[in-house]
Structure formats: structure tokens, C-alpha cells
């Protein structure tokens, strides 16, 4: 076992930059840039139309001002909307991937050579604006599972894309979703056919490398009747003193009896101790339980990013469908998080569970914002919400903003919230047993998060625990 102490004393270890020649478009956003992105990706005309429509809508929209976060204005004309590492024209196998890229992912702990991977995890690796490799594609194909980059899906499976793209998060859903719909450059696509249980974890690893580049990726997962899939995403970025924008959209569709489990470990560069730099993580994630007895479960561990704005949600349309949201959000130094979920109960006997654990240290600001909405026809709908906040030090803050709208009398909605501080007594107890102050803090925090971590796939639960230790470095003075 690696000593927790070593982990605590680590700096952000993913902060390096890969030197690689890139195909980059000039900064700025207009119709031409969108056309350029679309043509670079050799997209069919319907995609370009979709993008341009989204762009028009975006022009009429305003940034949301309701989140409890603050940042200097973002100049959207200074962002680079497309940057791709230069590679051979088309890659037929992993051997053709640039060795610098392979090395980068190896260094991030994501070796792309299949024999080196954890058996049972397939990876789509996204570097800046493009997917550079997808592992285990062939093996999955034998089962009829499609797992590939979004760009490839647009070309190879246009009908599926046409059918499901924007079906959960419409292009004009919100400011950042509209921006993403106009300029998204890549991401992952996953399709699990009827009755198939995906035998391995699928994952996407997002890496931002180039300076001044925004990353706008889309993930679309469709699980047909009776199928199931577990999906994980991880993300990191180099240390830079300027903020960078990451505005992603994730859409999940679960048909009758299907199950989708989506786990996120978000470790974007968070900015330095004075709050300089870091990623703005403005993300729209939503799943639709379209069929009866379907289930969508979100688990997120948000430890990075200067600002996190995201509300992975579930539309419970099918009768008896189940939505879950398990979240740990940690803000340290000057990090800000406004995160939570929306559970929209439409079908009968729909059930949702929300478990949110917020930890704020340093000057960190941590807000839970959640909506539970029960529509008229959602008889016997049930929701249970628990929001716990843990404060370290006396300059951090935690807030809870629950919104509850119930239009059916038979619904049952419960909400519990607690806020606590790490007590001196707990710390002293641990220390009087020989455990250092920093290890004691991470132990107490990990204990606080345990109910969420236990929902993560095994390997990632270990990763999450380590990550918490690193992120809390210096949290006790």
C-alpha cells in the first residue's frame, strides 16, 4: 500500500504539456469556423445544419447568472475552437498513433496498448479536440456494441446519431449546451443493442493540452431494451495561468429495462493556491429513462476545475424507472462548485435518490443545487435527497439550494441536509493514535464520502480516494 502521506505531498501531477505539432484553427467563433470544423470532420450536411442552427440560437442567448460562482467575463472570440494533434490521415490501428500521444496517456496512467490495460476497461482517448484512440473496439463489435469516437459515429452510424443527438439535451437547452452543439469537435459514442450486457467498463479519458483551446466534446450513450452498460470518464489538463473553457454535453438514453451507470472522476487543473488559472467546467449532462423499468445512475467525484457548473439529471419518463445521483464535490483554495442534479418524474412509480457530499476547504465555495420535479401523472413517485456538507477551516463556505415542485398528491419527497465541520475532537483522536494531521483529515473526509465512493467501480473507488488526499494537500494549517 502506498502511504497516504506521499500522496498528500504530491502536487497536481497531470500538469505537464505534451510537445506535439497541432492543427489549430485561429481563435474566434463565427459561421466559417463552424463550417471549417464540420468539413475537417467530413460530416454529412445534416450535422452542419444542426451546428449552424445551434450557433444562431446561441447568439441570442445569455450566460446564466444564477449559479453561485463568479469569474471574469469570458471572451468567446479569444478561444480556439479546434486543435488536433497532427497525425497520419487515417488510423487503422494503434501502432499508427503518434508515440508522443501514447506516451502522454501512459503518463496519465491510461496506457492505450490493449494488453497493458486493466482487463475489462475499454478506453476512448480524447486529446484536445479529437479522439486519438479507442481500445477493445473490435472485441465489443463482436457483441454488437458500438464504442467509438463521436466523429467516427457521425460518419459510420449517421442514422443513430440523427435519431438520438439532441434528443435528451436539445441544442438550445442552455447557453453552454448551445455553444457545444455549434462547435463540438469530438467525444465518445456508445450503443449497446437489445439484450446485451456490456462485459467491460467503457471509459473516455479527456485531456486538454493546447493553450487557449476550449474543449467541447459530446458523449452519447444509447442502451437498447434490456441492455446494460457501465461507463466512466476521467479528465486532466496542464497547469496554465489562464483559465480554459471546457463545455461538454453528455446524453444518455435508456430504453425499456436498460441500465446505464455513468461515473465521472473530474480532475481538471484547479488553478493555483491564489486561484490563478484552472479550467471552467461548464457541463450539461442528462439522461432519459425513456422506457419502463429503466435505470440511470450518475456518480461523480469532482475534485478539479476552477469552477464547476453541472447538474447530471435524469428524466424519468418510463413507468417504474429509477434515477440516481451520487456526488462528491471538493473545493479547495479558490475553487468554486455549483453542482447538483434534476430529477424529473414523469412516469408512474418512478423513483429517484440523490446523495450529495460537498467538502469545502481554504476559500472554497461549494453549492448543491437540485430540482426534484414530480409531474401530474407521476403517481406514487418517490424521491429521497440527502445533502451533506463538510467544512474545513473558517474561510470556506457551503450552500444548499433545493427546489421541489410536486404536482401529484401521491408523491413522496424527502429532503435531508446537514452541514458540519471536521471536529477538533475527531482530529485529536486520530492524531493521538499516531496518524498525522493531514492523514487524519483525509481519513475523515474519505469516511464522509464513503457512501458515494462505494457506488464507483472498484478501481476507480481507489483512484477517487487517492485523489481526495492529493486535493486536500495543505488543507489543515
Amino acid at each position: 500500500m502506498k502511504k497516504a502521506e506521499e500522496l498528500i505531498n504530491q502536487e497536481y501531477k497531470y500538469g505537464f504539456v505534451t510537445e506535439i505539432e497541432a492543427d489549430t484553427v485561429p481563435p474566434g467563433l463565427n459561421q466559417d469556423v463552424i463550417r471549417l470544423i464540420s468539413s475537417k470532420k467530413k460530416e454529412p450536411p445534416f450535422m452542419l445544419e444542426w451546428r449552424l442552427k445551434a450557433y444562431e440560437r446561441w447568439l441570442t442567448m445569455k450566460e446564466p447568472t444564477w449559479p453561485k460562482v463568479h469569474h471574469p467575463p469570458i471572451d468567446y472570440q479569444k478561444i480556439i475552437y479546434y486543435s488536433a494533434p497532427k497525425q497520419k490521415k487515417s488510423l487503422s490501428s494503434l501502432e499508427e498513433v503518434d508515440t508522443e500521444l501514447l506516451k502522454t496517456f501512459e503518463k496519465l496512467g491510461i496506457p492505450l496498448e490493449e494488453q497493458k490495460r486493466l482487463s475489462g476497461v475499454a478506453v476512448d482517448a480524447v486529446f484536445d479536440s479529437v479522439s486519438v484512440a479507442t481500445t477493445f473496439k473490435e472485441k465489443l463489435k463482436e457483441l454488437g456494441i458500438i464504442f467509438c469516437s463521436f466523429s467516427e459515429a457521425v460518419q459510420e452510424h449517421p442514422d443513430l446519431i440523427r435519431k438520438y443527438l439532441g434528443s435528451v439535451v436539445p441544442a438550445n437547452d442552455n447557453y453552454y449546451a448551445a455553444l457545444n452543439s455549434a462547435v463540438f469537435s469530438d467525444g465518445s459514442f456508445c450503443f449497446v443493442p437489445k439484450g446485451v450486457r456490456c462485459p467491460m467498463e467503457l471509459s473516455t479519458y479527456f485531456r486538454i493540452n493546447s493553450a487557449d483551446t476550449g474543449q467541447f466534446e459530446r458523449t452519447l450513450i444509447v442502451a437498447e431494451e434490456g441492455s446494460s452498460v457501465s461507463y466512466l470518464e476521467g479528465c486532466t489538463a496542464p497547469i496554465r495561468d489562464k483559465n480554459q473553457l471546457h463545455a461538454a454535453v453528455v446524453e444518455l438514453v435508456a430504453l425499456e429495462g436498460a441500465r446505464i451507470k455513468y461515473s465521472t472522476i473530474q480532475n481538471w487543473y484547479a488553478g493555483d493556491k491564489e486561484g490563478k488559472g484552472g479550467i471552467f467546467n461548464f457541463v450539461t449532462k442528462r439522461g432519459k429513462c425513456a422506457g419502463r423499468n429503466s435505470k440511470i445512475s450518475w456518480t461523480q467525484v469532482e475534485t478539479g476545475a476552477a469552477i464547476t457548473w453541472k447538474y447530471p439529471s435524469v428524466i424519468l419518463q418510463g413507468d417504474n424507472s429509477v434515477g440516481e445521483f451520487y456526488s462528491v464535490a471538493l473545493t479547495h483554495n479558490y475553487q468554486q462548485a455549483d453542482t447538483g442534479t434534476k430529477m424529473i418524474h414523469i412516469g408512474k412509480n418512478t423513483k429517484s435518490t440523490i446523495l450529495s457530499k460537498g467538502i469545502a476547504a481554504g476559500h472554497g465555495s461549494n453549492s448543491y443545487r437540485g430540482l426534484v420535479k414530480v409531474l401530474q401523472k407521476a403517481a406514487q413517485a418517490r424521491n429521497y435527497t440527502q445533502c451533506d456538507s463538510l467544512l474545513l477551516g473558517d474561510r470556506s463556505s457551503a450552500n444548499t439550494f433545493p427546489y421541489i415542485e410536486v404536482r401529484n398528491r401521491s408523491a413522496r419527497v424527502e429532503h435531508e441536509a446537514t452541514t458540519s465541520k471536521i471536529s477538533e475532537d475527531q482530529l485529536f483522536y486520530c492524531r493521538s493514535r499516531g496518524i498525522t494531521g493531514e492523514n487524519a483529515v483525509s481519513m475523515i473526509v474519505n469516511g464522509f464520502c464513503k457512501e458515494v465512493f462505494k457506488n464507483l467501480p472498484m478501481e476507480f473507488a481507489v483512484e477517487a480516494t487517492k485523489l481526495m488526499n492529493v486535493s486536500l494537500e495543505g488543507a489543515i494549517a
Partner: protein
Amino acid sequence: MLEIRNLHVTVGEAGIEILKGINLKVGRGEVHAIMGPNGSGKSTLARTLAGHPDSNVTQGEILYEGKNLIGMEPDQRAREGVFMAFQYPVEIPGISTAYFLRAALNAVRTQRGLEELDAVEFLGLLKEKMKIVEMDPGLLNRPVNEGFSGGEKKRNEILQMAVLEPKLAILDETDSGLDIDALKVVAAGVNRLKSPDRSIVLVTHYQRLLNYITPDFVHILLEGRIVKSGKKELALELEAKGYDWLKGEVHV
């Protein structure tokens, strides 16, 4: 092993002086009982030895194996072999008792230049140690002290002592809140942990614990000072006469 010289301690932000010049010598392998009524400063003394941040030493010295403990962090003291069994053990939600104990043991072992134990080795050791306090193995998988009864919490404290093998163990009112059966089990556990290399300081209000753990020396603490020291018979005398008997000695 332990030598306390003219120890003055204030507590809290108000800075009220609780200990007003304690002198105490504890030799290797000895068992000392510190007795005193409520508010005499017993628990403050125990907490000061363990390094509680609320205890401010304003004067004096605490020498442990020749090293001054004052200014040493509580976790460092623990790794050096000082252990305190808490009067009110703290709950740590989400962390299993077994995990907690292993983290503590490995911290102490590292200090002693020993290899860390992996989960399997540790469980083997723990099994042996649990016999000492007759603890229910089911408690090991439960979060530290969460939902434990008063007796289970105290057993857990003695179990931790058994696992960490301190050189100096301070038991802060380990008898409080225990019924007679639990008291016997806990006392038997402490007796089994007595050794020529381990000194034990028992802090207690009542004599009854001393029926089961025989001290070599008894000290009576009143209003922040040790007013009388003697052999185990002193405890019996105190039991018969009550603390009022010594009130006159406070200002001597």
C-alpha cells in the same frame, strides 16, 4: 520513563489555569493511579500528556524517556509510544475500526523502523489482540465507535492499546460508564497488557477500578496539585474518608 516537573497548564481561550505545578515521576513498568474529584484537573493532565491542542503549558517540563514532550505534536508522541485511552472515544463515520487500527499501527511501526503490515497480516494480529478484551469481531467492520455501546467503546480503546503496544499508557477514566461486568473485562485486559517495559497511568475518580488493577503508587490530585502520594493503601483510605479529608492540604 516519565517525569513531570512543575507543570502549569491553562485551558481554552479564557486561559484558566487548571494545573498549578504538578510534579510526578513514573518509572518503567510501574502502574500509577491519579485520583481526584471532578474538576481537580485529572483529565487535563491526561490530555496534556497526549498533547491536546486546548491544553497550554505555561510552565514546567514533561520528560518522556529523556525527551521533552512539550511542543511535540500529538501524533509524534503517539508514534514515540505514548497512548491515551479516551474517556469519551470519538466516532469517525465511514471509516471501519479495522482500517483505522491498521492505519494507526502502520504509522507507529514506521516510526519504530518496522515494515508496514498488509491487510492479511494485520487481521491475523488483530484476531489475537481481540481476545484480550473479548471484543465482538463484528465491530471491526463498523465505523470507528459509531453506534458502539459505552462498554464497546472502552473495549475498543483497550484493543487499540493492545495493538499499538505503547510504552506509556494513560487511561482517562476508563472505568466511567461501565457496569461491573464490563469493568472486569476492561480491567482484565489492562492487566494482561502490564509489562516490565510499559508504564501505566490510571486516571480515575473512584477507587473501584483499583480493586481490579492494582497500582504501585496512588496520587491524589486536588485543585490542580498533587496533594498526597502513597502506595495502593492510600486509595482505600481515600475511599473511607472521602476527598474532604484532604481539602486542608490544598494550600500547603
